[in-house]
């Protein structure tokens, strides 16, 4: 549906709605009307905004608000929804977590950083910060004095009972009641998996309620390596912010940086040379292969196949060598810059890629012989942690994990960037939704990526590797959102600019946060070993969750 039609339809449903911008279509509503409008948008068959792409808290100076980027997986149209409250003392907004499940963790994040309490949210704990944190860091009037929040040496108390706020209609009007939800009973056997645990692939902590070997409930605790990158970006110039993207999901470093560059370039109105697009696409696909190889290695190790780990790393090393030659870095490449890439590709790169395209398929065959075909591996993977398509969309689980549930969510196909519109590749979609599905999607995507590389590697056009940009970049006032397909799903960048050389607000839509939000759903009533297999198959990267 065209933006115009959507606008008319919304205006018909809710005449009070204010249309802020036309392209992209942005609607602003009062908090009280949000739940009604949101559930209508979600359920109306012509609109069907079933996917909450990104949820951003913002402090506009006077108001505290939330911006929802919505997309319809059926019709493909998108909408930006905004709501805000001017009460800075006790900001309260209605929760949409019952409409889009992915809002659950996102609202907790917004609560921690802006202090906005979400009414009817079941669990109002801070997601990343400690419970005893003073102040709300992403507010513009936050006092960052280290005396207020010193480095605390004592451990944080883990809450078994969590606060929640509920709305009640009384005779005088509305009343907000504070209540407590019980997360874990005193009688329960709760085991911490993490933050120091080999299977969480970083400092992530699951509090797991066990009944013998059976997992009854998983409570995800994050924030152990939260670095406040979004806050840091607010005081960095645009070229400086680039350096931090590689440190989000370090296995999708190129793609993350690509997204931020695209977003800034789009806002500035720069058209990058064709050569740059080719180089960026090649680098993105190499990153994807490297990341999926690492997934294979670590996933096998989670399942106890230790030898596989070394095979995967051996082959990933070849890609890292290519990166080193061209970019100078192996993990943190710092290659994309605004308007192009840092330097031209190394003359060896083309030859090495061609060699690699020939080298990898027989290795993949060996992987399948050694691990995939193994009867134990098959038993451990089939039918475990089944994620249905509806849940995948509601939780916003994108990337290979979403595609394994039958949701064609590849940004490369939906909104092609780089040269993805010029190459021929298949979007790997499976319908099993279990651990095996997620595993096989990644293995098949490696082949597809090789196929893309094959088409690109000989056709890189001559030209500049970057366009000249001014040393100080100022984006025109406005809100910009751009997303790319990172290795783990849709990676989005949202920039709000007020015309300064610093972004007013910069938000990264991490693919990892939705992934960990489904762990509870997938691992419940399975065994401990299944929890590990589910975690491995989702392939989250912790620095990406803790931005």
């Amino acid at each position, binding site marked *: 549906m065209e933006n115009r039609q959507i606008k008319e339809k919304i205006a018909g449903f809710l005449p009070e709605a204010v249309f802020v911008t036309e392209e992209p279509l942005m609607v602003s509503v009062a908090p009280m009307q949000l739940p009604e409008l949101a559930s209508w948008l979600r359920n109306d068959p012509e609109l069907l905004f079933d996917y909450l792409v990104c949820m951003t808290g913002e402090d506009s100076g006077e108001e505290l608000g939330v911006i929802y980027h919505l997309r319809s997986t059926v019709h493909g149209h998108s909408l930006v929804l905004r709501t805000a409250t001017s009460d800075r003392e006790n900001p309260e907004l209605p929760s949409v977590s019952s409409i889009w499940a992915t809002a659950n963790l996102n609202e907790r994040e917004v609560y921690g950083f802006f202090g906005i309490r979400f009414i009817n949210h079941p669990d109002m704990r801070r997601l990343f910060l400690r419970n005893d944190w003073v102040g709300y860091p992403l507010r513009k009037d936050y006092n960052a004095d280290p005396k207020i929040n010193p480095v605390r040496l004592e451990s944080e108390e883990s809450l078994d009972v969590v606060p929640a706020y509920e709305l009640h209609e009384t005779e005088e009007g509305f009343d907000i009641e504070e209540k407590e939800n019980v997360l874990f009973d005193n009688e329960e*056997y709760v*085991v*911490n998996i993490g933050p120091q*645990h*080999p*299977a969480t692939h970083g400092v992530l902590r699951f509090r797991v309620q*066990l009944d*013998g*070997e059976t997992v009854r409930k998983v409570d995800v605790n994050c924030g152990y390596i939260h670095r406040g990158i979004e806050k840091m970006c607010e005081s960095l110039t645009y070229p400086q912010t680039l350096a931090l993207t590689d440190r989000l999901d370090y296995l999708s470093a190129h793609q993350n940086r690509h997204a931020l560059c695209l977003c800034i370039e789009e806002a500035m109105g720069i058209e990058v040379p064709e050569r740059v697009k080719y180089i960026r696409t090649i680098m993105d696909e190499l990153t994807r292969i490297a990341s999926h190889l690492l997934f294979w290695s670590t996933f*096998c*190790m*989670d*399942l*106890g*196949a*230790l*030898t596989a*780990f*070394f*095979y995967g790393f*051996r082959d990933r090393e070849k890609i890292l060598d290519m990166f080193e030659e061209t970019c100078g870095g192996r993990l943190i490449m710092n290659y994309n810059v605004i308007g192009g890439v840092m330097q031209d590709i190394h003359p060896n790169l083309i030859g090495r890629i061609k060699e690699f395209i020939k080298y990898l398929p027989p290795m993949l065959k060996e992987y399948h012989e*050694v*691990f995939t075909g*193994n009867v*134990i*591996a098959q*038993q*451990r993977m089939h039918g475990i942690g089944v994620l249905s398509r509806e849940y995948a969309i509601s939780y916003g689980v994108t990337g290979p994990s979403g595609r394994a549930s039958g949701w064609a969510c590849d940004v490369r196909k939906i909104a092609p960037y780089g040269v993805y519109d010029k190459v021929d590749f298949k979007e790997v979609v499976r319908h099993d939704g279990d651990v095996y599905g997620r595993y096989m999607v990644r293995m098949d995507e490696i082949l597809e990526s090789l196929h893309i590389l094959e088409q690109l590697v000989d056709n890189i056009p001559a030209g500049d590797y970057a366009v000249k940009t001014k040393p100080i970049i100022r984006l025109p006032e406005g809100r910009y959102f751009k997303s790319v397909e990172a290795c783990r799903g849709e990676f989005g960048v949202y920039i709000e600019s007020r015309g300064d050389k610093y972004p007013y607000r910069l938000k990264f839509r991490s693919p990892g946060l939705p992934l960990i939000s489904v762990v509870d759903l997938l691992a419940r009533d399975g*065994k*401990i*070993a*299944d929890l*590990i297999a589910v975690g491995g198959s989702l392939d989250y990267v912790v620095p990406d969750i803790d931005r």
Partner: protein
Amino acid sequence: MFDFSVVTKWVDMMLRQWLPESWVLTTEFVLIGLCVLVGYAIIALVLIYVERKVCAFFQCRLGPNRVGPYGLLQSFADMFKMLTKELIEVNHVDRFLFNLAPYIVIISSVLAFGCIPFAKGLEIIDFNVGVFFLIAVSSIGIVGILLAGWSSNNKYSLIGAMRSGAQMISYELSIGLSILTMVVFSGTMQLSTIVAEQADGWFLFRGHIPALIAFVVYLIAGTAETNRGPFDLPEADSELTAGYHTEYSGMHFGFFYLAEYLNMFVVASVATTIFLGGWMPLHIPGWEAFNAAMDWIPSLLWFIAKVAVVIFIIMWFKWTFPRLRIDQLLRLEWKYLLPINLVNLLLMVLVVVFELHF
């Protein structure tokens, strides 16, 4: 073929010349004890080295190669490091049980180690219920593991201990039944007699299909019994960090570590003794010259070679297979191995009764 009883008899005679009967026995006990412990430690260290090398070659690596030629001294260096490390006192543990557990594990494996006939005349404990004794002592180890998990005051350890309890008690059945199958075939429980009976051909070949089935079942169950991959659930590092020995440090951890390797050796030795003829050379009835040539190879070498083959197979399992889940592990035992074993036992009885064997 060289008979080691010559040496032991000579030592015995020498001692008897100078000492009274009771002192002779005491001295011999001490000597044997020393030999067993030294042998135990050396075999464990060699096995650790071998495992690291084998695993390295599976994983396209070199393995230890810095300490000594080809890294040969690496595991000795590791042992000395472990001996000098502090035994950390963990808070809120049941201190007595916590300290007792590693000794129970190590005692059980030393006792089992003592029963094995290494070579002709080189056997410490040999009596008419040898096999029975071996199974009995080797299952004491589980008590130590359960105690370790229980007393550690650590939830991972407890889950690991529970897993290992369920696993080892289940697989003990398969081990027992597959050995029983061969006891039916040989008609004796004395290990020396079992080896002697295989002079004309190893039981694996003589016992037809039931012996082959019993051997395969024994290998699977034996791997499970030693808590090695793909049955390493009690210590599953990606799930329980290190399972029952998470809280142990220094030599107490070292005991668990040594015991794991020695148990592997014991399992391989029992497989060798019962199925592959122990120290007995490969004899083919009727080929006199061939048999005589085989007899030239010392019996100890035969034994070590056979054990090495079995150990290599067990290592091969570990470095290629992913880990089973606990319910799959128990299903494998109770739904597949146990019924197969029972039928196999019946089959073996029929083979023996109707004399269908070679």
